[in-house]
């Protein structure tokens, strides 16, 4: 008895499943990265990696075996001419699956499956930009403006703090640039694929403790201007903003908690 296929069955029958997987593999080798459901990506991975192994072998027999799955001769040519040689040094693990959350409409869990060596120029450019920029990031885009608005509404002190922090931002811009140049120097070593992630992780571990210290400062001194000054020696300007955002959030939450309670009380008296 043959071993059953690992993972979910796709489509309405064996032929449908074979066709879908072949089409997915064709699209993957054509575009380098495709977005599909997690189930299909998981079924596609072993098939695609087997095809890349054929491409690494590169002889006529291998090419004919690949052509039984991928019917597009142009795609098979790129597979054998470009993708196979790229993976010559890599012993398996040619694809990467990253989950990207549920889809609107049917809530199906989606994933991105891509070839590990960045094929498209956009992928490589993004990787280089990430390395050059380092790992210092401001708080999420949605959180910061809302937090600032709430701070102005809540108390005048916090608004003054925000002004002081903006001045510190201007002062702290120069050291940030210096750090970015250092990170670029580190990242300029020609690394590819998974090595990039490791290099980025090394620099990220430096950044995490400063942010943790910043949150501690925020909890200790609410409404005082000392917090940002103490952190200005080591932390970047964006973290001060996050402190203001936290305070504002706490204030807004407190306000929202009180109002429903009053409403309930009124209802009880009526």
């Amino acid at each position, binding site marked *: 008895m043959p071993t059953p296929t690992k993972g979910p069955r796709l489509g309405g029958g064996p032929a449908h499943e074979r066709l879908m997987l072949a089409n997915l593999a064709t699209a993957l080798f054509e575009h380098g990265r495709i977005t599909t459901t997690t189930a299909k990506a998981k079924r596609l991975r072993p098939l695609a990696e087997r095809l890349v192994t054929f491409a690494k072998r590169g002889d006529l027999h291998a090419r004919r075996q690949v052509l039984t799955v991928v019917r597009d001769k142009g795609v098979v040519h790129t597979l054998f001419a470009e993708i196979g040689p790229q993976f010559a040094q890599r012993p398996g693990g040619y694809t990467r699956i990253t989950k990207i959350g549920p889809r609107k409409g049917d809530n199906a869990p989606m994933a991105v499956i891509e070839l590990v060596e960045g094929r498209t120029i956009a992928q490589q450019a*993004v*990787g280089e930009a990430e390395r050059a920029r380092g790992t210092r990031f401001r708080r*999420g885009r949605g959180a910061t403006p809302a937090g600032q608005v709430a701070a102005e509404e809540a108390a005048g002190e916090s608004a003054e703090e925000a002004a002081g922090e903006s001045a510190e931002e201007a002062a702290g811009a120069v050291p940030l640039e210096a750090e970015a140049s250092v990170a670029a120097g580190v990242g300029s070593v020609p690394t590819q694929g998974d090595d990039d992630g490791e290099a980025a992780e090394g620099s990220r571990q430096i950044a995490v403790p400063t942010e943790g210290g910043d949150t501690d400062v925020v909890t200790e001194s609410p409404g005082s201007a000392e917090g940002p000054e103490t952190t200005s020696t080591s932390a970047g300007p964006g973290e001060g903003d996050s402190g203001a955002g936290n305070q504002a959030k706490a204030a807004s939450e407190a306000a929202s908690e009180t109002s429903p309670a009053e409403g309930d009380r009124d209802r009880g008296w009526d």
Partner: protein
Amino acid sequence: MAVPKRKMSRSNTHSRRAQWKASAPAYSTCKRCRSVKLPHVACPTCGTYNDRVVIPV
């Protein structure tokens, strides 16, 4: 073919359905933008997973 002999009461129906409970999804924090996200899933806010851009934002 086996068929139900009696109508199922509302009480029994409701008692069975009382066990249908929704559970809150687990959340984690994005390492880069500190926003709330699903664990093991790329951050929908900054589009990265493991310091690698997955979704171009």
